[in-house]
């Protein structure tokens, strides 16, 4: 149809305007909205994931720091323990040494004491024996005290 008809043109314009509005309502708006919404959701998920990652990194760093701290502490404790053990060892050793010395000294002193006792008793016995023998030999009891004195003197001089 080539003749121009005003009403057809008007109708077409009206129809087209209605179609444009209908398409805006039924096609562009809902799909645009749903795509925007999905974008929003995706952004949200992404932001959340990023936050989680940061958190995890932070936690990892914290743990690492804690482990390092524990390591230092462990070393410190071991060093301290070693130090105190060394001290204890030294002390025990020193104590043992002192004890040993004391015991040794005591033993030496006792031995010396016993030795001198033995010597003294031996001296006395010898003197008695000599006196007895002399008494027997001399036969007189009276002269025995004198002789014993003399002998003591003699022995004392000889022992010096």
């Amino acid at each position, binding site marked *: *149809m*080539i003749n*121009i*008809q005003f*009403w*057809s*043109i*008007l*109708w*077409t*314009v009206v*129809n*087209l305007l*209605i*179609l*444009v509005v*209908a*398409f*805006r309502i*039924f*096609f*562009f708006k*809902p*799909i*645009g909205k*749903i*795509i925007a*919404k*999905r974008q929003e*959701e995706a952004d949200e998920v992404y932001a959340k994931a990023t936050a989680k990652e940061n958190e995890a990194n932070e936690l990892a760093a914290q743990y690492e720091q804690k482990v390092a701290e524990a390591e230092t502490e462990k070393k410190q404790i071991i060093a301290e323990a070693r130090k105190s053990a060394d001290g204890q060892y030294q002390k025990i050793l020193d104590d043992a040494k002192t004890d040993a010395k004391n015991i040794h000294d005591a033993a030496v002193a006792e031995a010396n004491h016993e030795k001198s006792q033995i010597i003294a008793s031996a001296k006395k016995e010898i003197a008695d024996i000599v006196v007895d023998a002399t008494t027997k030999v001399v036969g007189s009891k009276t002269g025995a005290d004198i002789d014993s004195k003399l002998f003591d003197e003699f022995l004392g001089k000889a022992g010096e």
Partner: protein
Amino acid sequence: MTLAEKLVEELNCEEVFRLHIGGFDIPIYESVVVTWIVMAVLILIAIFLTTGLKTQNISKKQAFAELIYEKLNAIVGATLGEEGKAYTGYLVTVLLYIGLSNIIGLFGFKSPTKDVNVTAALALMSIILVEAAGIYHKGIKKWLHSFVEPVAIVTPFNILDVFTRPLSLCMRLFGNVLGAFVIMELLKIVVPPVIPAVFSLYFDLFDGLLQAYVFVFLTSLYLKEAIE
């Protein structure tokens, strides 16, 4: 009935009925009725595609709807650019309307675009949109000044453009649809059985969609020029 008579009959757009609104006696032609059918089909498809939209675990239907949405916006947006985003909705709708109108002949209807009044209305709306967008984006002063650009001597041609552009849009679409229709009718008479089907792929389907694209492409080109 001779071939010429048959063609003329096919080309004629019959008056289907008359509306009496107030003092007006409004005739309704075939092209308007088919336009209503096209609108109904498009709107029903749109409603069908956009029911039960979700953001996750989307259905195949929704994936298809989003694909169409993205592709159509991309096709129109490519020429329109960022500033003209507001006009994509209108242009996509026009693209779908002309596209379906051009190929609806395959389903036994008379294409509305075979009526020069329909293409004239489309072209009229395009040029009104272009000039209105120009005024809106530039302001009246700059819009008027754009007629003397790039040099004052082209002013008459620029003014002429306002009329030749819609005229060319209108006639290009109408002529292509009409031409394709005439060629198809002739082919059907000359080599009846199989061959017209093959040509129909080109003249009815491809050319129909191509002309819809060309119309929208040129409109968006004018729009971009007007709002820059």
